[in-house]
């Protein structure tokens, strides 16, 4: 009878937990054993409760995976990996481990969603982590002693484990030891679970409502919410403009530093994306916040940051082509899709080459000197006396002016666009919109939440149309160039050439659709309600525009 096969821990596996499940998860399922009590005493207590050994004591090796920016943790989720034969068993659960949502066996080297086996777990992870790599964030090793409680029918009604663990994180030398009891409830047997929970608490075991992962993070001093990839500085309206701008730029430099290692290692494309945005936002801020810093200093750093921006461009371009590749393929009829594969190989090869060059530049003395000088400049205290017109003015007044001016530029250029306007004009509008978006996001904390959210949302929709149009414009011309390069390298078969031609045709069609959608989108952005919001929020009179 197959049912005699050794049992493995059963969990609730339903994605929409029922009432009984919620009741069961209401209390902690992990308890810390204080040193003064010790494992032996707790084992005796559990045996007294009727627990029996389920298997001999064995070693455990747990790895909690999450993205660099802790996307799973932020969504109250956790992904645990444990070796099982030649695979790793992945368990996707709530952050505290109480409700298991999916399990799967994956290849040990699987790090991206696309490398996971198809199924519930992959489907659940995909919208959260998208293209990000899963990094081993917290490691837990040690010994586990599995126990179980059975009812008079010999049915297992609760699984328990008494564990000696060491908690650490890759790259950290600090290791923390702990002893704990883990409860692994069986669905539909909440009564016995509650009894055991009460008993453990009455013995002064400390419940861990945040689960083992939460406790491990606290021990290791890791604060997952810290990095968001976005500027989180809260400015006050009367802050000096130079101080406020410096604090924003410092935050942006922090984002660049945070992503530097990931960019160099080429872990996933998001590191470079965040790095680039931080560089671009820094450049925008330097360029638009006029007469806040000495002109010569600004000019010097703008040139150097522009170098950094250009450095990252080619790799990002290749990343984008590769990210879009599945969409390219699905544009083509199914029979032709395999013909595009040589293009993927070509792009991957180019990406590797560009990334190697980028990584080398980021390890260069020139980059190190730029980072050092930039950091020194940003750490400088604001001068007490300044001749710069905007340096000592309140940031709110200066931000109002800059946003208002940029917004007016967007409106002026947008209105001037007609059906005959060349692509370059739309590209120019796109750049202006980007600057406006950066300003709105960077100075967000100075304004009311709701109207700002609304304006950013409206602007984003306009940017999407402009972005798609421009991206398609560039892609169409680049794909032609790639085909020529492949031809030159003897890698272009007639079938691939034809597939690329079909793709270019489809992209041109989409570009034309985008172009047609522009007028309507711009009209929506320029609607009376938005105009009034911009005017109300940013058009503070009295101060002359600089």
């Amino acid at each position, binding site marked *: *009878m197959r049912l005699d096969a050794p049992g493995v821990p*059963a969990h*609730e596996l339903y994605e*929409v937990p*029922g009432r009984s499940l919620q009741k069961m998860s209401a209390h902690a399922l992990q308890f810390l054993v204080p040193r003064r009590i010790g494992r032996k005493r707790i084992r005796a207590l559990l045996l007294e409760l009727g627990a029996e050994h389920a298997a001999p004591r064995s070693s455990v090796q747990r790895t909690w995976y999450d993205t660099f920016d802790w996307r799973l943790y932020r969504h109250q989720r956790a992904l645990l990996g444990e070796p099982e034969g030649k695979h790793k068993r992945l368990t996707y659960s709530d952050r505290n481990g109480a409700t298991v949502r999916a399990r799967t066996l994956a290849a040990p080297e699987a790090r991206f969603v696309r490398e996971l086996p198809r199924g519930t777990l992959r489907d659940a992870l995909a919208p959260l982590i998208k293209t990000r790599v899963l990094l081993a964030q917290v490691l837990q090793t040690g010994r586990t002693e599995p126990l179980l409680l059975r009812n008079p029918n*010999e049915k297992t009604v609760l699984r328990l484990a008494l564990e000696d663990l060491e908690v650490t994180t890759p790259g950290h030398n600090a290791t923390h030891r702990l002893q704990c009891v883990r409860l692994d409830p069986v669905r*539909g047997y909440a009564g016995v679970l509650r009894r055991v929970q009460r008993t453990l608490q009455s013995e002064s075991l400390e419940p861990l409502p945040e689960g083992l992962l939460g406790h491990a993070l606290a021990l290791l001093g890791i604060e997952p919410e810290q990095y968001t990839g976005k500027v989180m500085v809260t400015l006050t309206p009367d802050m000096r403009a130079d101080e406020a701008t410096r604090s924003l730029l410092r935050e942006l430099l922090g984002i660049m530093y945070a992503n530097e290692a990931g960019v160099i290692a080429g872990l996933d494309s998001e590191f470079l994306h965040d790095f680039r945005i931080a560089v671009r936002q820094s450049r925008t801020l330097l360029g638009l916040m006029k007469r806040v810093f000495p002109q010569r200093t600004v000019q010097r750093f703008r040139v150097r940051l522009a170098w950094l921006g250009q450095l990252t461009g080619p790799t990002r371009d290749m990343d984008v082509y590769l990210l879009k590749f599945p969409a390219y393929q699905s544009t083509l009829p199914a029979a032709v899709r395999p013909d595009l594969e040589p293009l993927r190989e070509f792009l991957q090869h180019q990406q590797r080459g560009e990334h190697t060059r980028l990584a080398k530049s980021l390890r260069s003395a020139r980059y190190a000197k730029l980072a050092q000088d930039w950091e020194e400049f940003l750490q400088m205290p604001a001068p007490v006396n300044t001749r710069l017109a905007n340096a000592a003015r309140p940031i709110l007044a200066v931000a109002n002016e800059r946003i208002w001016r940029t917004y007016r530029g967007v409106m002026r250029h947008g209105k001037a666009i007609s059906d005959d306007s060349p692509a370059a004009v739309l590209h120019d509008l796109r750049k202006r919109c980007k600057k406006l978006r950066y300003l709105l996001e960077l100075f967000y904390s100075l304004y009311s939440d709701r109207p700002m959210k609304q304006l950013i949302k409206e602007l984003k929709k306009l940017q999407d149309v402009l972005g798609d149009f421009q991206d398609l414009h560039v892609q169409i011309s680049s794909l032609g160039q790639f085909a020529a390069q492949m031809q030159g390298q003897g890698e272009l078969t007639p079938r691939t050439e034809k597939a690329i031609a079909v793709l270019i045709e489809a992209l041109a069609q989409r570009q034309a659709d985008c172009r047609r959608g522009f007028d309507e989108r711009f009209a929506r952005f320029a609607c009376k309600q938005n105009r009034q919001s911009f005017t109300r929020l940013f058009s503070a009179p009295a101060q002359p525009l600089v």
Partner: protein
Amino acid sequence: MKSMKVLACYNIKGGVGKTAAAVNLAWLAARDGARTLVWDLDPQGAATFYFRIKPKVKGGAKDLLRRKRPMPDSIKGTDYEGLDLVPADFHTATWTWCLTRSSARRAACTRF
């Protein structure tokens, strides 16, 4: 919701292994990673006994069909990962009547 595959084991004779086959197929499905629920609709409750689970449904099995009680309240975890059970209820004998009415049968199968 994803579509479910339906496999039917049938034979008019008793004791030929219909329940054994169904329970083992469920176990195989769970072992292969599918979230599997066995709903024991047999008034004899043989599948429920396989798992050593008490043949009783909170509030009565009829309430389940009438949607007076949510299904998750009645689910019991088996000793096997990914394999759960809605136990038999000895009152399910009355279901035969209930399920043979075609409209009720259709409704019951599409509700869960």
